[in-house]
């Protein structure tokens, strides 16, 4: 579903991604972790071309991003993305947030879009808030709306960029629950997250990045199983985040 092939990216002279390659198969859940500045968010943003890269290619559902002829907005409309800071549109009601891209990008009718949006809102447990505005919801609720908004576009794959990092601890689980449910339903997902409990529960593979390189790329069982078989950098990282 996603094939990342030798992706290299520079900011000026500074290389943020070096020869990153991996695959995400249909229905697979891949967790990307690593220290800050390791390039994990940059990598996931390359997948829907929010960040340009200078070398290599990424193919999403048989569409090449490096290909100049690719209609990127069209590609992005098929890739759902959830952001660290939710990025709901604050001037629109929850219903409008769910409908706007369905109507303006996919050309669905308003009635069709709002039916779809409300069904998804129901699914993330927020049907009662449809008429409100994002500023009136908690962080966890906003993030669940953001997931519903992305799902409303019927994406072939969902990208999550640290979806729980900006949340109060109490609200992390309500968002993870939605993500677990989604994973269990067979959605193809690529998640940048430090929630190792989530990774253990639903991930098929774990990718560990450091200094712009993919250091580890292995099945979950291997990643969390025999720590001594991991690279030194991954061991240090895991020792720090798994301690508590």
């Amino acid at each position, binding site marked *: 579903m996603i094939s990342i092939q030798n992706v290299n990216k520079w900011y000026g002279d500074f290389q943020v991604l070096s020869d990153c390659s991996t695959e995400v198969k249909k229905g697979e859940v891949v967790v990307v972790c690593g220290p800050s500045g390791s390039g994990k968010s940059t990598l996931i*943003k390359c997948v*829907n071309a*929010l960040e340009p890269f200078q070398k290599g290619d990424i193919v999403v559902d048989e569409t090449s991003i490096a290909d100049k002829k690719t209609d990127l*907005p*069209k590609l*992005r*409309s*098929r*890739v*759902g*993305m959830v*952001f*660290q*800071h939710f*990025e*709901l*549109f*604050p*001037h629109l009601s929850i219903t409008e947030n769910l409908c*706007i*891209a369905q109507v*303006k*990008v*996919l050309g669905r009718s308003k009635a069709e879009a709002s039916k779809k949006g409300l069904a998804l809102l129901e699914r993330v447990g927020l049907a009662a808030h449809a008429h*409100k*505005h*994002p*500023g*009136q*919801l908690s962080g966890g609720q906003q993030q669940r709306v953001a997931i519903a*908004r*992305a799902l409303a*576009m019927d994406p072939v794959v969902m990208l999550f960029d640290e979806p729980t990092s900006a949340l109060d601890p109490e609200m992390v689980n309500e968002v993870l629950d939605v993500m677990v449910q989604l994973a269990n339903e067979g959605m193809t997902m690529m998640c940048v997250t430090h929630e190792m409990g989530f990774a253990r529960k639903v991930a098929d593979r774990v990718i560990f990045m450091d200094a712009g390189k993919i250091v580890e790329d292995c099945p979950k069982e291997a990643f969390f199983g025999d720590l001594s078989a991991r690279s030194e950098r991954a061991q240090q990282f895991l020792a720090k985040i798994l301690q508590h």
Partner: protein
Amino acid sequence: MNYNWDWGIFFKSTGIGSEIYLEWFITGLGWTIAIALAGWVIALLLGTLLGVLRTVPNRWLAGVATAYVEIFRNVPLLVQLFLWYFLVPDLLPEPLELWFKQDLAPATSAYLSVVVCLGLFTAARVCEQVRTGIQALPKGQIAAGYAMGFRLPQIYREVLLPQALRIVIPPLTSEFLNIFKNSSVASLIGLMELLAQTKQTAEFSANLFEAFTLATLIYFTLNMTLMMLMRTVEKKVAVPGLIAVGGK
């Protein structure tokens, strides 16, 4: 001070037809409003467009908008008005020049000049406010727009401008009031708006203080009314749970 105060002057005959001085003020107020509103339409539309251009990821478009702002806000308003009224008509193609100088009533040609002048001058200021409003928004909003498949014009229309314009309503209100006050420059090219009528009243009646007191009151009341109107607009478009309105 040896001065004969006469507050009844406004109801006295001007000596021209059956007009009383108050009617001059009313006519003048009419011109003031007509200049300001027409100028504001130009300023708001052009200013918003320029504000957008200053933020688009294209150096040439942004450069054009920047150049516009620097030219129009660094030349005094009065100089700009004289250029529009005395110089620009000479640069027009001949049929247009003749139309402007001979066919139009003097008040109409002065009106057109001052509306264009104030509109373009104020557009530079509106542009800067719209630009700052757009730049004040989190970068993630643009990313979210792109991620949903929007193209750049859609992101501006659906995501950035509705938020940015709400943010800048308070400074835009100042600009809106400014254009009413600045419309008084029209008196210098002979358009009989409020200030010109005031000066004329002062000269005809010799009741200078009364005339200027009334003009002051009219400008003040007009601007207070506009300010309250804008505050109502601000409240009306306020987003629930987002921006505190009117300091509340």
